[in-house]
Structures are given as structure tokens and as C-alpha cells.
């Protein structure tokens, strides 16, 4: 059987369900972090990798989603079932408004305007004490209620007996799995192909009658929507929502993940999230100077593996396949 035929995505997802059973509480925590960031990074890749729009303010939508879910669940007592999609919808709406202006600009100006909007979001979260808790953020976001699982457990005993954080991890797995599947469908659709065409040659796309700006805006909204979903999950996971979710350094972090994993492949950014978070956990136990290591990794990446892990693996794979034919 060809290796590329194996459905890696679903297999990895399935394996991830066993983390709480096999690993400790700590591993579940790390895995949950990875799962959420994987969605965040993949959403960014729709813009950067597929459409060729370098956003330096993607954290804005992550932050908006986190605050939306956090506010709805903590202050309004709305159930997770509503608060979670609301994160995506609100972030998507903001992306629609901001994106409307951003896609009118090109290259560096586009990056600057996304940055400006993200800083606006950050400034509002940072200062609007009554609603967002200001600098102190909003601690103690409640977990979704898992009481209904007790009833399920009477029928299916293997469902019961986990911690609330484990149940939340399963929830994240399912929701991120669905989101990634949707994103994959989107980028593989004719619409997604058109995004790639725009990345390769926007002028040409314009000539064949494509409304480039409208496509770019759609990509922007989709990316914002899924970043918002990731933010909504992250706020609960993090047990609190803080203004630095939307600060520009968060936008760079997720860009690094995307680049590390490889922007040319769909699962690259998710892989980048996995590698970066795992490395972080490993290195933090030896040294507090993680940013130094991260910066060094980034420099090596930029100079030696500009295609990221995904790009390097794909190149190796192609080489390995070509060899028997040549021999």
C-alpha cells in the first residue's frame, strides 16, 4: 500500500483520543494545547500559504473568539454549545469588517493594516475594564457542563471515569477534527484552488474574470472564523482570557508555527504546532530562555529549511520515489 494513501489525519486524531488513558495529566494538557494551536495555525495558513496574504495580525481573531466565548459563558451564562460557534461567528464578522479594508492593500501595507487592527483589538481588550477585565484579563472561565456524560456512561461504561479536563480535551479533539476537515474541504474545493491561483498570479486571475478582492476577503473571513473557534477553545482551556491573546507577538508565534510546519502542505501548520509546543515543554525544563532557542530555530529554518518540516519531508519523499525509477 502506498504511504500517501493512508488517511494520516483521521489516524492521528484517533490516536490522540488515547492520550489521557495512556499518558499522564501533563501529556493531556500538552496535547490539548497542541490541538487548539493546530487549528489556529491551519486557519492562518489559509491566508498565508494558500492565498499568499501575509497577515501580521491573525491573533486579533483568536483574541476576539476567546473573549466572545469567555464573556458569553462567564458573564452571560450561555452554554458552550452556543458560545463556541459564537466565537467563530463574531471573529468572522470582525474579519469581514477589517478584511474589507485590508484586502484593498498589497503586501507590506496589507501586513501593516492587519497589525494595526490587531493592535486596536488588543488596546480595547487591554483598557475596557468593565467588559474585558482590562489588563488583568478574565480569569475562571467555566468548563462546559459534562453532566450529560454521566447518563451516557450508564449505557457505555468506557465513557465514564475521566477528569473534566480530559472531557474537555475530547471535546476539543472532536471540534478541531471537524474544523480541520471543513478547512481541508474548503482548500480542496474549486474556491480553494482559485485562492491558490490568486497567490500564484493575481493579475492573471483578474484577467480571467475573477473578483480577486472578493476571494481574498472570503479567505480572510474563513481564516478569521476558524481562528476565532480556536480562540474560543483556548480561553476555556487556559482557564482565562487575557489581552495578550491579541498582542502582535502572538501573531508572530502562530506565523512561526505555520512556517516551521511548512506552508505548502495542509497538515504542515498543525505539525508545526505539535513540534513547537512539544519542544517548548522539553526545553522549559532545562532553561528559561525559550525565546532564545525559538529565535535560533527560526533563523536555522529560514536559512536552511525555508519550506519547513512539511516542505523538507515532501522533498525527501519525492526524491525517494524518483530513485527506483532512475535505477
Amino acid at each position, binding site marked *: 500500500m502506498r504511504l500517501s494513501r493512508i488517511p494520516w489525519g483521521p489516524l492521528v486524531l484517533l490516536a490522540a483520543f488515547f492520550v489521557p488513558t495512556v499518558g499522564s495529566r501533563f501529556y493531556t494538557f500538552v496535547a490539548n494545547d497542541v490541538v487548539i494551536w493546530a487549528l489556529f495555525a491551519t486557519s492562518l495558513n489559509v491566508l498565508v500559504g494558500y492565498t499568499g496574504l501575509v497577515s501580521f495580525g491573525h491573533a486579533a481573531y483568536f483574541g476576539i473568539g476567546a473573549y466572545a466565548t469567555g464573556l458569553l459563558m462567564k458573564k452571560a451564562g450561555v452554554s458552550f454549545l452556543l458560545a463556541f460557534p459564537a466565537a467563530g461567528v463574531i471573529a468572522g464578522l470582525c474579519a469581514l469588517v477589517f478584511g474589507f479594508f485590508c484586502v484593498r*492593500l498589497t503586501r507590506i501595507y496589507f501586513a501593516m493594516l492587519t497589525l494595526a487592527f490587531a493592535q486596536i483589538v488588543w488596546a480595547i481588550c487591554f483598557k475596557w475594564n468593565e467588559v474585558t477585565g482590562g489588563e488583568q484579563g478574565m480569569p475562571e472561565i467555566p468548563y462546559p457542563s459534562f453532566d450529560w456524560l454521566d447518563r451516557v456512561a450508564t449505557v457505555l461504561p468506557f465513557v465514564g471515569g475521566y477528569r473534566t479536563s480530559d472531557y474537555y480535551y475530547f471535546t476539543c479533539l472532536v471540534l478541531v477534527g471537524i474544523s480541520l476537515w471543513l478547512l481541508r474541504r474548503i482548500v480542496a474545493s474549486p474556491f480553494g484552488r482559485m485562492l491558490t491561483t490568486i497567490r500564484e498570479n493575481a493579475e492573471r486571475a483578474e484577467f480571467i474574470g475573477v473578483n480577486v478582492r472578493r476571494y481574498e476577503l472570503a479567505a480572510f473571513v474563513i481564516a478569521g472564523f476558524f481562528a476565532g473557534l480556536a480562540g474560543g477553545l483556548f480561553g476555556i482551556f487556559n482557564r482565562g482570557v487575557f489581552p495578550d491573546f491579541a498582542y502582535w507577538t502572538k501573531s508572530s508565534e502562530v506565523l512561526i508555527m505555520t512556517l516551521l510546519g511548512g506552508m505548502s502542505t495542509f497538515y504542515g501548520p498543525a505539525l508545526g504546532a505539535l513540534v513547537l509546543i512539544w519542544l517548548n515543554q522539553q526545553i522549559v525544563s532545562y532553561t528559561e530562555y525559550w525565546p532564545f532557542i525559538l*529565535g535560533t530555530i527560526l533563523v536555522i529554518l529560514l536559512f536552511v529549511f525555508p519550506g519547513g518540516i512539511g516542505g523538507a519531508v515532501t522533498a525527501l519523499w519525492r526524491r525517494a520515489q524518483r530513485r527506483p525509477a532512475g535505477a
Partner: protein
Amino acid sequence: MPDPSFVFAQSVSGLTAAMFLFLIASGLSLIFGVLRVLNFAHGTFYMLGAYCAYQIVQWIGVESGHFWLAALGAATAIAILGGLIEHFLFRHLYGKEELYQLLFTYALVLILSDTAKIFWGTQQKSVSRPPELTGAFQILGATVPHYNLFILLLGPAIALAFWFVLQRTRAGRFIRAAALDRETLGALGVNVDGLYTWVFVIASFLGGLGGALIAPMRATVPGMDTDVIVEAFVVVVIGGLGSFWGTFLGALIYGQVLSFGILFFPRFSIFSVFALMAAVLIIRPWGLLGRPLK
């Protein structure tokens, strides 16, 4: 209507902030104008300038005149650092995508600011004002420290010197030519690679100087680099990326908006400057005094 002396004091403090921002943003704008790269690490150069000034003052003491030595020494050290980074690393990314260049400068932010933490820890460091300038003037009922007045005079002086170099010297002509058309300049026999290194050196010098000079006014702490770089971005975007007088104007506007914003909408003054940045980008992406990129 607020008390006029208060308004005056507020606008002076805005002007002082503007001069610092100009020092930092002018380097950023210079690099963008010539190399078409947004240098995130520029804020880190500024922070390192402050730390270096602190360190040199620790070594040589606070006697009269020593602060100036420290400021110049710090700026020179940062200039050398900037030159080395350009020469050995950054140069190899010129042909690549903008994203790679941006992320490289961000990698520098991570590496250099952590290095600063290794050397100087996370405690805030402060430098005392130079003994020549510890007093203050009373102007229109407002207290203006001598040091602030010095900064207010230094900003325009540097702007004029900068303008003179760019407009009236051979090196300045080359820099302007490189901004317009790198290849033609190279074909005419100018060493463009060397020129780029010098642009980086000058820009880093200005960033380092800004940091060294702000050390007596604000505490030097980790994280000041990531804060200041977005402020500098706002300034260069408002004025026009790569436009020299635009940067000056942008710094003045930023300083006044921030200091009067604090007066009237204390909570949303930060918001207002970013909103201004977004508005400029939407209406005139190339800034108030800039020219559209081709």
C-alpha cells in the same frame, strides 16, 4: 477648558515623546526606504542601547560628561551590532519573500531580547540624568526639566543633520538612488552591498542612541522593545514608510495624539493612535508625506 499651563505641559511632554519616537522611527524608516524591509528588531536595538548605556555608566561612573560618553558608546556598539547582523545574516535574505525577512527580524527580537535578559536580568535598570541637565525651567507655569528641553532641541538637530546627509552628500545621493533602483545603481559601479550595510549601521546607531537617551527618563525593562516597535510602526505608517520628513511629522502627531488623548479619553489614548494608523492606511496607504510604492 483645562488650565493653559496644564495644556502647555501636556504638549511639551507629547513633544518630548515625539522626539524619542522620531529617533527610533527614523532608523526604521531609513531601512524600509532603502531595503524595503520592516525591521522588527529595531525596537530591540533601542532596548539594547538603553542597557548598554546603563552598563557603561556602571563602569565609568556618573561624573560630569560621562553620560554622553555612555550614550555615544552605546549607540556605537549597537551600530556595530546592526552592521554585523546585516553583513553576515540579513544580506542572504534579500532575494527571498517578505515574510521570511519579517520573520528573520522577529527571530532577532527573540534572540537579542533574551540575550539582554541573560546579561541584565529582569529587574528594571535606571540611569540617572547627566549632572549638567538635572535642573528644570519654569515656563508658563509648567515645569520643564532641562533634560527634556535638550531632547526637544536634539530631535530637530538630528533631523536636520539627517536631511543634510541625505540631500547634500555623495553618500546620501547613493542612499536615495538605492531606494529608487538598486540594480541600476550597482550597474553604475556603486558598491550596493556595502551601502546596505552602512544604511543598517546608521539606522542601528539612531535606534541605539534613542534607547541610550531615554534611559534617564524611563526605566529600562525587558519588553520595552516589543512595545516601542509598534509605536514606531505607527509613526512611520502615519508619516509614510520611507519618507524622512513624514517620519518627523508622524512622530509629532503621535506624541500630541497620545498626550492629549490621555487628557480627554484617558482610557482610549492607545486605541486612538492605532485607529489613526488604520485610518491612514485605509485612506492613504503610503502615508501623509510618502509616495506610493511602485
